[in-house]
Every structure is written in C-alpha cells, then in structure tokens.
C-alpha cells in the first residue's frame, strides 16, 4: 500500500481486531488479523499492545494452552470508548476524502 498508517490508525485497527473476540485473542493471531488489512511487520504490534494495555484499553490474562500459558488480550470498557472515538474520527476523515475523490473513477 502506498498510504501510510499513522499510530492512531494502527491503535484503532488493533482495538477493532481485539474487540471482535469477546473472549480475547493472542498476539500471533492479532498480528495475522491486522495483516489482512495493512502491511505490518511482526515486530510492530508488541509495543502497541503493551501500550494499549498500560492505558487500560486492553486487559490481559493467561490461559493454559498446549502445555503452556498463552497470553490473551481483551478489550476493556475504556478501550471500547476509545475505539468508538477513533471510528468516528475515521468516518469523518474518509467521508471528506471520498468527497474530494468523487468522479475520479
């Protein structure tokens, strides 16, 4: 993709991906899901997840899986509020851009 993804949009995408799993989801899967939409390297998401966790937008818990503990991420109420905020911002952004693009196709 030729367009950049800013850190706010990346936060928003990660929150949206995690919010789709009510029981929580884990780092590897989050990375794969985010990569469905944008080119993101394997090492980009850890700091994002860690920060969202510290900001109480995500909560973590460990669950036994295949003989080890797997860390799961789950969206918090605060995270949902933040996600809605991002979504509204995004909606207004892309609508305005689309108006500019009207007639290009």
């Amino acid at each position: 993709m030729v367009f950049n993804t800013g850190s706010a949009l990346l936060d928003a995408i990660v929150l949206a991906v995690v919010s789709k799993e009510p029981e929580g989801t884990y780092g590897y899967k989050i990375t794969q899901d985010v990569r469905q939409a944008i080119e993101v390297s394997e090492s980009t998401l850890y700091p994002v997840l860690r920060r969202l966790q510290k900001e109480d937008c995500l909560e973590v818990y460990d669950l036994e899986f295949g003989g080890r503990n797997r860390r799961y991420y789950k969206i918090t109420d605060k995270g949902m509020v933040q996600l809605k905020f991002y979504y509204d911002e995004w909606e207004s952004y892309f609508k305005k851009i689309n108006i500019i693009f009207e007639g290009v196709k």
Partner: protein
Amino acid sequence: MTKLEFLKELESLLPDIPLEEREEALQYYNGYFEDAGEDNEEVIMKELGSPSKVAAIIKADLNSNATDRESRGYFTEKGYQDTIYKEEKYEIIGTANKGTTNQEETYHTNKADSAKNPNESFSSNGSYNTNGGYNTNGSQNANRANDTNNAGYTNGTQYSYKNTQQSKNN
C-alpha cells in the same frame, strides 16, 4: 540462529529497561514463536529481522511519550502540515530523491524557466523543494524501496524518522 538464541540475544539487548518490561517482551515473543509453530520459526525470525531491531522498536516505544506519538501520527497522516519533524522529513525526502534524478531535473528546469521570468517569486521560493507533501508523492517508488530495505519498519512509517537514524547506525 534458533528461537532460543534469538530470545537470549533479545534479552541481552534489553538490560536498560525495567525488569517487568523485559519479561513482558520476552514472554510475548516466546509465545509468538510458539503460536506460529516450530515450522515457521525461521520465517518469523526473518520477518522480525534481528534481535537488535526488535529491541530498538521496544525501546523506542518505551522512551516515547504521548506527545511524541501524536506528532508521529500527525506527521504521517497530515504530512506537509506538520512542522515539528521538518528536519527528519527533509532528510527522508533527500534520501528518496537520490533515486529520482528525473524529479531533480524537472525542478531545475522549472527553476531555469522561471529565472527568465522577471517575476522571480517562484524560483526564490525555497519552500517549493522542501515542501514535504509534494516531493514525497513524486518519489513514491523510491520511498517504497527504502521501506523494503528496512523491512521491520515497513508499515510503521510513523517511525520513519527513527528509522533513518537507525540506518545510519547500522
């Protein structure tokens, strides 16, 4: 390099962050390898780049504050409106321009043309060339090539100014 060696090296590269952060990061990447499966270990390591690259990304985020991050977002999303990282932005454009001599020539031609014009305002307007938005778009391919070289940061273009600095260190 095995997964264990990778994680050990990563650990050794993070002595200067709080213990809790180090353990979190190592647990994350250990789990990441486990979830990817043994067959994918090498692919993952290749994707991650080197342990030092992973360490640099972890540290960069720990050392940044909210204002830094907002500025980064601002920088990538609103491009030329941003002034905080003008220096770094110019540096990146400079790199990109190396691959696009045509761009340079076009600019010079324009400059020469306008020099003939008694109205000098266009050529004396230095901001034309340093205007990030314009040039960055013009040299998109060069930018992308640059990104590919720094595979780990490809998407994280919001880190691009750090990226440039890191390339220098390498």
